[in-house]
């Protein structure tokens, strides 16, 4: 089944502030969307709404295909070695080939280091390993380039491009410009209430 993600006439309210309204989005297989805008405009909230973790104030979401999320929270046990922490999600996702993600992200050398000692960029790469192992069809990435050096940022862009080539969907919220082929940009300012 083809991955599909559609949002219709979304509005988001945080506290008593309306962040955006009238936002619609339609993604089919292979689409990449760059959600742009300054801090506090509602990029992360949009990602969480698309993930189904936050109820929109108005509007609805339709999803076909499994969803993977990367945000600023790692969901890996800080006291465990990286290998053990990733193991849990591999078992849950029933991942066939966890070595591949480690290879791509160059994490092999870090497997015995407790997660809390990893640097910001290393943690981000670990989160991508978790994402790749789960092999979801729809990627929701909230500021995936934060803390990454230029080289790692390029490989993340390459990963997203590969994912879309394989018929996946990527929605990337970032205040940094990202080089993604065939992206359309969604500027949240246009929908600000």
């Amino acid at each position, binding site marked *: 089944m083809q991955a599909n993600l559609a949002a219709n006439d979304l509005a988001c309210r945080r506290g008593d502030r309306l962040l955006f309204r009238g936002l619609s989005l339609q993604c089919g297989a292979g689409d990449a969307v760059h959600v742009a805008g300054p801090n506090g405009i509602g990029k992360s909230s949009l990602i969480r709404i698309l993930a189904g973790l936050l109820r929109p104030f108005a509007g609805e979401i339709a999803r076909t295909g499994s969803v993977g999320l990367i945000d600023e929270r790692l969901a890996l046990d800080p006291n465990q070695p990286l290998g*053990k922490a990733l193991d849990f999600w591999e078992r849950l996702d029933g991942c066939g080939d966890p070595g591949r993600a480690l290879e791509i992200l160059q994490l092999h050398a870090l497997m015995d280091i407790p997660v809390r000692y990893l640097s910001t960029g290393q943690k981000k790469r670990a989160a991508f390993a978790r994402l790749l192992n789960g092999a979801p069809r729809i990627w929701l990435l909230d500021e995936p380039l934060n803390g990454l050096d230029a080289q790692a940022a390029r490989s993340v862009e390459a990963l997203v491009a590969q994912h879309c080539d394989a018929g996946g969907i990527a929605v990337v919220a970032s205040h940094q410009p990202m080089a993604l082929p065939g992206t359309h940009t969604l500027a949240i300012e246009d929908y600000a209430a």
Partner: protein
Amino acid sequence: MSTAATLLRRDLALLVPGGRGGGGVLPLLFFLAVAMLYPFAVGPDAQLLARTGGGVIWIAALLAAILPLEKLVAGDLDAGVFDQLSLRGVSEELAMAVRLVAHWLAFAPLLLLATLPAAALLGLSAETTRTVLLGLLAGTPGLAAVGLAVAALTASLRGGAALSGLMVIPLAVPILIFGAGALARPDPGGLMLAAAISLGLCAVSPIAAGAAIRAARES
């Protein structure tokens, strides 16, 4: 089923004393320390100790059950673990039901074991010790259930740890009344009521805790 087994394995690794997650033996030492301090406080009157010791063990167990609550839910909530589970179709209720089992396994069996030296310190008779053990066996699942629900409710609050201690105590009173009350009367009715309350709490707790985690996302 394998999902639940995977979750249980991780939860146990985090919670069991000596586990990788740093689940400590502190509650246990705290429990023993109370049993050790009590004779110093009231004096060496063996009769008084034997008469009141069972109740002291119950209070110590109740307070020891509060200690692990701080780490029970808040860490995973902050780390986004429940978000990731939810994306994989694992409901918050299932995650909480598994955590309830792991929480009970991590503190109750050791507590029951530690009751033996505590009973010896207080000079309890064999029969009283038996009643205390059966009472704790019936009551600790309820204590774990109350603790889990309260830990989930307070996980997203600043200073939630202190608050959860205060909230557990009134909710645990029924278990204490019937569980410790069995020491004063010979019939097993009190123990059965404590077990019934425990069962009821265990049924409700994962649902309440799951709802609390979902509510925390909206805040």
